[in-house]
C-alpha cells in the first residue's frame, strides 16, 4: 500500500477518452474504473473543470446525443470550406480553358483574314 503513495507525486498525463467519461457520468463504471478516472481528473484541470460542468446537465444520457450533434455541425463547417475551395479551383480552371479557346479562335480568324487580304 505504501507504494501507492507514489501516485500522489506522479502527474498522470494520459487522457480520458470521451466514452469512458460518459460512462463515468452515467454511473456505469465499476468502482475501480471510477477511481482510475477520478485520479486523472485530479491531475487535469481541463478534465476536472469539464466534469464539474457536465455533472450540472439535467439529463446525462442526452450528453452523447448533444456531442454527436455538435460534432456533426463541426464536420459541416470544416468540410464546407474544402468544398468551396474545390469549387473555386474548378471555376478558375474553366475560365482558363475558355481564355485559351478564345485566344486560339482569334489566332485562326486573324490568320484567315490576313490570308484572304493577301490573296485579294
Amino acid at each position, binding site marked *: 500500500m505504501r507504494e501507492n*503513495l507514489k501516485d500522489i507525486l506522479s502527474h498522470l*498525463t494520459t487522457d480520458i477518452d470521451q466514452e469512458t467519461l460518459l460512462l463515468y457520468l452515467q454511473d456505469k463504471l465499476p468502482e475501480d474504473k471510477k477511481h482510475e478516472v477520478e485520479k486523472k481528473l485530479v491531475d487535469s484541470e481541463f478534465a476536472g473543470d469539464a466534469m464539474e460542468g457536465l455533472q450540472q446537465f439535467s439529463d446525462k444520457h442526452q450528453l452523447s446525443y448533444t456531442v454527436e450533434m455538435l460534432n456533426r455541425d463541426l464536420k459541416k463547417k470544416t468540410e464546407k470550406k*474544402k468544398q468551396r475551395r474545390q469549387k473555386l479551383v474548378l471555376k478558375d480552371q474553366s475560365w482558363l480553358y475558355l481564355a485559351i479557346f478564345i485566344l486560339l479562335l482569334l489566332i485562326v480568324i486573324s490568320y484567315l483574314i490576313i490570308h484572304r487580304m493577301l490573296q485579294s
Partner: protein
Amino acid sequence: MTTGKYDHITDQELLEKFYADRNNEWLGILLQRYTLLLLGVCMKYLKNEEEAKDGVQQVFLKAIQELQKYKVEYFKSWLYMVAKNHCLMKLRDKHGKIATELNNETIPAPEETDKKKLQQTDHTLDLMESSLQELNTEQQQCVTLFYLQKKSYSEISEATGFSMMQVKSYIQNGKRNLKILIEKKLKEEMNQ
C-alpha cells in the same frame, strides 16, 4: 462519437497535417476529440445548457480561425484557455464583470511525471508518510482513502459522510499541500 481511423494519430500530428495542407478537416478531427470536455467547461462557467452548446460552437470557430494565424505548441492547454476566455468574455458581457483574459504566454506546458522525485522512492515515501500526518483530518482521511485504498469519490463520500464536492476538494487540496510539504522538507535537507 470517436473518429475511429484517426485514433492512432496524436494531436500534434493532426496539427502538423493541417499546417502542411491547410485542410480544415484535420482540425475537425482534432477538435472532435474535445467536444465533451469543451461542453463541460462551457457549462461550468455559463451554467446554462443552451448557452454551453452555443459556447462550444463558438470555441470551435475561434479555434479554427486562430489556428490559421499561428502555430500552437500545446494544443490541449491552448484549447482549454480559448474555452475559458470565451466563457469569461460571455460572463463579462452578461454581468458587466471584469474578467481576466488569459493570454498565450500563460499557457502552461503539460506537466510530466517528476521522475527524479520518484527515483528517490524510499526516501520520498518516508517524507510523504510523515507529511500525510501533517494534513488536516479531512484531507488526510480523503487522501488516504483515495490514493492508498483506491476508493472512488462515491465510496469515500459514503464512508466519511462528506459530499462528493467536499471529497474532491479535500483530495485536490490535500495533494497540493502534500507536494508543498515534501518540497519544503527536501529544501531543508539540501540546506543542512
